[in-house]
């Protein structure tokens, strides 16, 4: 599709020499001077466009050429309009010859309008353009082709997007009236000269044929986008264009009470729902309503009609798709209208409720059900309607069964993000639904991880934090399970070839199915994790190279960071202690993916330290488990990162100043545990298959021992003994447990520093176990420090240099 030829075309266009370019310009001007424009002119113009658009640096055209191109904008040949507009959009307007936005007599076609829009330099330009367009709408110049009228609405919509103030109050009123006409009162007969057929073509038999519905029956009500005919009249076209922009129009001019520009059109939940409508909604004659309110009423009727029309069985598949899109739009518009005028809620809810009932069991309408959920969220409380069944769908069936639909995922997660406040208030099962919601992430991590970065904090609660942590750590397993689930439904019972055989068999076997079903659960609360997690990991070991699983594993560390950052703000000490235990336990219980374990260990280490720093008494509290972890020599080799941090935490925080429960016995037992490990790793070669212990582990162990000794001085001789032995052994030459000489030197140096420090126990104690006021800097609040700071400040102020 994209060939070498295309690449070279672009290259040529970028690298064209200036002289050649000038020659080309001259030739083009000559061509444009002629009366007729043939293929050569078109091709040259197209080539000019390519040359201009191929580079991001703007080229300026010679004035003569630019003038000729401007004149082509109003050429009767459309191709010339298109090409000249495209070329002029890629270059700069001639200085002093900016396009005149106030021209009265130039009839705007869609291509010249595009140029005006793209070169608009200010709000004033856009306002003039608006005024011009509305004038042409009012005067109804019917000489031009029908497009000159129909594309007016799209341009206005484009201007509205950026600058709603370009339309004055009068303009808004005028357009509201026109929109009402087009939406509600478009012709209900077919346009285009359709006749009832037959041999008789006399005027008597040329009766107007009524429009039809999508299922072929004759239409009995006003014209909408879901009506068909052989041909269409102009106002029927305007009906389509009007409806296409209606939602945006209502969002822009009908949401704020005083018609101010809307800062955030998405956050409808913030809009003040107490806007009082001028006339009561039960008014029988809508002709008495002012234009804005009348438009609202007509929009309301249009949407109700669309909802009714969407129940018909369309004859064409594209029309079925359109019906769905119309349902989405209709519900969104009804929502918008009800937010503006809350009295309409009572008229709307029965219809929306009926629609929900009709569609809720059909998953192909899932994307239509999301706007309905938004409607329920916005107005359900006011109408005192039970929304349970809606949430069951949104948090239950949709994630469980449609996790692989990228568009549904995007829209559902967006719905959650925008309504987080309301959901947390009104939907109590929201935080517990994370096992289901995470299925979106497990399936297609790269696409939705951004959404979960925003959503995850709201899912962290005190009751479910531990289960959430386990679920996040097993997210790649969930991915693998979802893959197996899909494969299991699609493929036959026995698969030739054998790919995925072991895990698929396990998934299907009744004895192990429970493990997988736990991962696929819909709600939290049935247990933090399962006992036979290691069995599950074994079965899923072969999924380690499945691309989806790998992609998922790469997003887990990020989410864990967010989890921990959030959980420290809500957790009490008991929960934090539990989390530390989970971290220690799971450090060896993870799906065996190449870099996964290492990354998780890194995250754990970082947060373990943070938790201990935040609540130093945790270390004494959990000393039993931490010592058990630190005493396992195998951890030095398999979990080096975490091990180092646990040892460091023990050395740093196992002291009386951190927690008064810290006894001499505790310090001594910790010392002995660490000492044993240190002896073991420095006296023998590493076990087969393992590399030498990292130097950092050794130095951390030595430092920890020194710190503990400084708090209980009878331990000092033991440390000194070890350190002197270390020095002797290393003087003899290389050792089995350290391969690099520089590392060895560093270790020994550290040992010597500590040894000399420990010769004066008093000093050692204040260096290795500093009192809190030393470690928490006070800066200017500290009378000892502040003197020097004050002097320095005074000096710099008074010193004239």
């Amino acid at each position, binding site marked *: *599709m994209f060939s070498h030829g295309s690449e070279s075309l672009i290259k040529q266009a970028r690298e064209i020499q200036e002289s050649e370019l000038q020659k080309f310009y001259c030739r083009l001007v000559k061509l444009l001077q002629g009366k007729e424009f043939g293929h050569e002119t078109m091709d040259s113009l*197209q080539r000019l466009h390519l040359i201009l658009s191929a580079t*991001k640096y*703007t080229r300026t055209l010679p004035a003569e050429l630019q003038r000729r191109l401007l004149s082509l904008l109003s050429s009767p040949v*459309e*191709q010339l309009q298109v090409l000249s507009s495209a070329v002029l959009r890629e270059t*700069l*307007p001639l200085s002093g010859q900016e396009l005149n936005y106030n021209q009265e007599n130039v009839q705007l076609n869609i291509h010249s309008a595009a140029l005006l829009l*793209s070169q608009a330099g200010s709000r004033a330009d856009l306002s003039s353009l608006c005024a011009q367009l509305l004038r042409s709408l009012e005067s109804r110049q019917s000489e031009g082709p029908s497009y000159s009228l129909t594309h007016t609405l799209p341009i206005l919509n484009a201007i509205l997007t950026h600058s709603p103030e370009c339309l004055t109050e009068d303009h808004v009123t005028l357009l509201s009236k026109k929109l009402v006409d087009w939406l509600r009162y478009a012709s209900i007969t077919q346009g285009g000269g359709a006749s009832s057929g037959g041999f008789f073509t006399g005027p008597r038999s040329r009766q107007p044929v009524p429009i039809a519905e999508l299922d072929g029956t004759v239409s009995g009500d006003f014209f909408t986008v879901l009506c068909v005919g052989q041909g269409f009249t102009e106002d029927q076209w305007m009906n389509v264009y009007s409806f296409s922009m209606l939602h945006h129009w209502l969002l822009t001019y009908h949401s704020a009470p005083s018609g101010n520009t809307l800062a955030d059109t998405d956050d409808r939940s913030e809009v003040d729902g107490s806007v009082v409508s001028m006339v009561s909604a039960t008014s029988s004659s809508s002709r008495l309503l002012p234009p804005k309110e009348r438009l609202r009423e007509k929009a309301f009727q249009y949407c109700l009609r669309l909802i009714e029309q969407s129940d018909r069985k369309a004859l064409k598949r594209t029309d079925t798709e359109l019906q769905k899109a119309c349902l989405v739009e209709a519900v969104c518009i009804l929502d918008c209208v009800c937010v503006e005028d809350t009295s309409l809620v009572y008229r709307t809810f029965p219809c929306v409720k009926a629609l929900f009932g009709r569609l809720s069991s059909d998953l192909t309408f899932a994307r239509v059900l999301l706007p309905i959920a938004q409607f329920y969220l916005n107005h359900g409380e006011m109408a005192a309607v039970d929304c349970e069944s809606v949430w069951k769908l949104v948090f239950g069936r949709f994630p469980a069964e449609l996790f692989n639909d990228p*568009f549904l995922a995007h829209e559902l997660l967006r719905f959650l993000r925008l309504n987080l406040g309301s959901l947390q208030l009104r939907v109590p099962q929201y935080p517990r639904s994370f096992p289901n919601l995470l299925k979106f992430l497990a399936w297609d991590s790269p696409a939705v991880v951004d959404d979960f970065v925003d959503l995850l904090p709201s899912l962290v609660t005190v009751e479910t934090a531990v289960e959430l942590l386990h679920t996040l750590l097993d997210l790649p397993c969930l991915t693998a399970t979802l893959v197996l689930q899909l494969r299991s439904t699609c493929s036959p019972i026995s698969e030739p070839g054998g790919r995925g055989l072991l895990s698929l068999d396990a998934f299907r076997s009744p004895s192990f199915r429970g493990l997988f079903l736990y991962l696929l659960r819909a709600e939290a609360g049935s247990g933090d994790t399962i006992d036979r997690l290691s069995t599950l990991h074994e079965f899923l070991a072969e999924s380690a190279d499945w691309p989806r699983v790998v992609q998922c594993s790469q997003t887990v560390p990020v989410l864990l960071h967010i989890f921990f950052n959030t959980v420290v703000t809500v957790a009490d000490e008991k929960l934090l202690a539990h989390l530390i235990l989970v971290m220690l336990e799971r450090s060896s219980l993870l799906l065996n993916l190449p870099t996964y374990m290492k990354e998780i260990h890194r995250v754990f280490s970082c947060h373990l330290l943070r938790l201990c720093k935040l609540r130093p008494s945790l270390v004494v509290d959990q000393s039993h488990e931490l010592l058990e972890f630190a005493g396992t020599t195998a951890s030095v080799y398999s979990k080096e990162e975490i091990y180092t941090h646990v040892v460091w935490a023990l050395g740093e925080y196992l002291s009386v100043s951190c927690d008064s429960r810290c006894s001499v016995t505790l310090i001594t037992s910790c010392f002995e545990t660490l000492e044993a490990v240190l002896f073991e790793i420095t006296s023998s070669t590493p076990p087969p298959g393992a590399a030498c212990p990292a130097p950092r582990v050794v130095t951390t162990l030595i430092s920890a021992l020194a710190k503990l000794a400084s708090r209980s001085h009878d331990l000092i001789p033991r440390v000194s003994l070890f350190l002197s032995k270390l020095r002797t052994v290393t003087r003899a030459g290389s050792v089995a447990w350290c391969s690099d000489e520089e590392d060895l030197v560093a270790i020994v140096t550290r040992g010597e520093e500590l040894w000399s420090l420990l010769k004066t126990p008093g000093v050692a104690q204040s260096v290795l176990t500093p009192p809190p006021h030393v470690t928490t800097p006070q800066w200017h609040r500290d009378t000892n420090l502040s003197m020097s700071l004050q002097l320095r400040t005074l000096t710099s102020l008074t010193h004239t240099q």
Partner: protein
Amino acid sequence: MVRCFLIHTVCPLSALSAGDSRLLYCRLFAPEDGLLTGQLRELSPEERRLLRMEKAAVVARQVRSAVSLSRDASGRPPMEALPGEEALALQEASSGVVRLRAGDPFSEEMSALWLAVQSLGFTLVCEPHENLLLAEGTLRNLTRHCLEHLHMLGQGSEVLLRSNRIDALLSRLLPHGQLLFLNHRFAQSLEKDVAAYMAK
């Protein structure tokens, strides 16, 4: 409304670095954001155009990486359709949507819907409150027309040499970035018009 429509490469190119994408067609609708809030007023028109093209390039790169990740994950081998098999190519095309955060690169949050047919991606950047169901249908329709009228399953250089056809197509089906609710009759009428243009 739709902010822009892009056609760009989604396959590795020797001339570019690994994650980069070559823009073959780029159409931004409407005045640029930031124009009226004063952010852009200090910039000259050349700088503004440069900014526009950079923004389009950012979107193309993000879609490119989304496409390649999606293709890796699904593990399906890319199919090669021949000219004449446009409908099949469209059916086999992968699709998705990328969330563009506010500021990256547009000042508000946007949704970039993409359709990847073999080595090219077709992207529609929409404001998120837009009807994405309609946008998806419109994108498919546009892609089908591009594939057919520009013979893109062949050599593919017509995208560059006949971009005016895409402009004309967009002026009917997506005028000034406006998504349209077209039933099959309205669509037929517009498509006849498009075909008449292409025949010239």
